[in-house]
């Protein structure tokens, strides 16, 4: 390269440039989490408390099984853990075990063949029958009859109420039926600063049309009203029924009469804690948040989401289930399974409760005397534990996201903007959904 000698500076510059590129590639690769040779790689969610819990369990396992070590990492930070997992699947850099898999994602991954069929592991079905009731087990069984996930933890959606403000409008206990809730809406609606615009509403639900928002309004209410009916089963759309229509109707009235605000209140500061709204559909994570940020004298309580007036029995709700899966990049699923058996014992479930305030998806957790002490010390978790008997996760379908997106579009048009009747909206949604289910 004779010409380069003419300008020595260029040589240095070029070399430096290539070195830089090499270092960049190397450095970014280093950020990828690759399974080590003999170790089982285990990812948990990056919730601080779950990380502590996982570390503790992994430490104990490694102490007892020094030649079958488990390496623990929180799932890498990203926009959402679902995206990070998908990126890992695509790049074939998945861990061996992942414990924060949203139940709705599993079917698509199962179809793609990246998950281990757990029911082929020794002792799995017996274990599952002890841990969960038959309804839950049916829920996590895939369309091909195999089971690819262990039900791990749930966060049931319930109604949180501002005790003091509700008392002021005559509600000593939270509203139970649609009518009661509407009455609360009317009483609570107020224009505080006299500018002619309402600035106080009984509740709020996210008006943005993101498909997963419906898990916090439409879906819990639908499950409550219908005793846990499915939206789709075996590729058949089943949600065009009277329950869905009534839920849409109820929510539509809330927006029409301005009991729920149409403005995107979530772009403001926390409106429940600041008293702008009196109730919210939320989960156990709210407890930590409220304790951190609530003002002086603020009191709150949890109750099931509203049900139709004629309703009888126990209301169901959505539980945001997160489950454990083993990816097929795992070299030794049997050892992974041994580790998981230890992770999901009763003792570990209690430890999980203590450390993270999230409910393990174990049957009868509210009645089991093993957990009594915990609930005595954490009474705010008790409503959730009782609700845990009547929860539903997600239906088994690889196009769940698309179905919820369709429902969300109709939700916006009907419920928020009253452009269609509830009957029409549900019918349109079902029609569109039938086109994409295959």
């Amino acid at each position, binding site marked *: 390269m004779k010409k380069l000698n003419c300008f020595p500076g260029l040589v240095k510059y070029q070399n430096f440039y290539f070195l830089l590129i090499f270092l*960049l*590639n190397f450095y970014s690769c280093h950020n990828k989490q690759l399974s080590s040779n003999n170790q089982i790689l285990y990812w948990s969610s990056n919730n601080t408390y779950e990380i502590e819990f996982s570390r503790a369990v992994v430490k104990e396992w490694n102490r007892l099984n020094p030649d079958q070590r488990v390496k623990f990492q929180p799932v*890498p930070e990203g926009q959402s853990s679902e995206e990070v997992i998908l990126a890992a699947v695509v790049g074939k850099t998945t861990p061996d075990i992942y414990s924060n898999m949203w139940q709705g994602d599993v079917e698509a991954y199962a179809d793609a063949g990246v998950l281990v069929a757990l029911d082929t592991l020794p002792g799995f079905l017996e274990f599952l029958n002890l841990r969960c009731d038959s309804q839950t087990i049916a829920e996590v069984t895939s369309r091909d009859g195999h089971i690819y996930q262990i039900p791990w933890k749930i966060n049931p959606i319930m109604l949180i109420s501002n005790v003091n403000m509700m008392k002021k409008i005559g509600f000593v206990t939270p509203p139970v039926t649609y009518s009661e809730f509407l009455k609360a809406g009317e009483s609570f609606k107020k224009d505080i600063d006299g500018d002619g615009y309402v600035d106080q509403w009984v509740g709020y639900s996210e008006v943005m049309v993101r498909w997963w928002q419906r898990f916090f309004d439409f879906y819990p209410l639908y499950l409550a009203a219908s005793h846990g009916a499915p939206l789709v089963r075996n590729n058949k759309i089943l949600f065009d029924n009277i329950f869905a229509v009534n839920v849409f109707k109820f929510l539509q009235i809330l927006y029409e009469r301005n009991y729920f605000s149409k403005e995107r209140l979530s772009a403001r500061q926390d*409106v429940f804690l600041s008293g702008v709204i009196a109730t919210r559909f939320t989960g156990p994570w709210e407890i930590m948040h409220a304790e951190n940020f609530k003002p002086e004298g603020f009191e709150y309580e949890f109750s099931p989401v509203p049900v139709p007036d004629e309703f009888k029995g126990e209301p169901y709700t959505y539980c945001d289930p997160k489950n454990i899966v083993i990816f097929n990049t795992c070299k030794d699923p049997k050892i992974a399974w041994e580790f998981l058996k230890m992770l999901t014992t009763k003792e570990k479930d209690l430890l999980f409760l203590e450390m993270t305030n999230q409910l393990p998806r174990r049957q009868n957790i509210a009645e089991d005397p093993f957990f009594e002490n915990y609930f005595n010390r954490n009474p705010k978790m008790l409503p959730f534990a009782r609700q845990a008997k009547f929860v539903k996760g997600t239906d088994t379908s690889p196009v769940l996201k698309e179905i919820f997106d369709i429902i969300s579009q109709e939700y916006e048009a009907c419920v928020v903007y009253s452009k269609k009747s509830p009957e029409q909206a549900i019918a349109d949604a079902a029609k569109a959904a039938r086109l994409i289910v295959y």
Partner: protein
Amino acid sequence: MKRIFLHIILIVGAIVFLYPFLWMVTASLSPESEITKLTFLPSTFTLTGYQQMVEKIPIFRAFFNSLLVSLSITAGVLVFGSMVGYALSRLRFRGRNLIFFIIIFTMTLPFQITLIPQYIIMVKLGWVDNYLGLIVPYLMNAFGIIMFRQYFMSLPQDLIDAARIDGCSEARILFGVLWPNSIPALVTVGIITFMASWNEVLWPLIVIRNENLMTMPQLVTLFVVGGRAESQLGVKLASATILAVPIIIAYMFFQRYFIQSMATTGMKE
């Protein structure tokens, strides 16, 4: 009389263009409860928004990432752009016109069509969640090449002939002779490329999922839109303010160059 009127209009105009920034900065420094009522000044100033922001997101890491990526892209565009521009303007070779047409073609090609396939290529190359995925697709820039070509065409031929007689290679002619004489072109292309790559958000959102590799605008976007801020406005405003600060500082010092660069670009179109 007319002049007073003129000044009033201009002052109103300046307010319209500057007030939103002032509001944002003051709001980011206000206590959480006052933000929604803020018009000009809060009762007290507080840094809690910034404190919380630093705790929640790796904002300085993102700043470093943006800096690294933008500098690399700018360096690449300057080097490669001037190389190709020089070849197109001053050297004779077969296929010169063809390449020129290809470059014009790529300038008119809307990115909407290459977006998805380019992502898939990144996946196949393993450049997802990798600096290379952010930098390499942007290393060549048709606009930069055209700018350099045009500028080099306006330089006197004697300059180059003299260097050739001295027995210098083409590389030395480019970097040793043309570059020092093309400062305006280098500055223009440099500033515009840097600015464009710094502010680019769509591509990082597509290619980077790992928080530690995110660029600054990307991190702020996700923070502002997502739930990590726990509905606290002050934190989000702080992140938006801090995103604006580097460019505003650069702008305050180099304002003339910014404006000139974009103006000359406009003229050339």
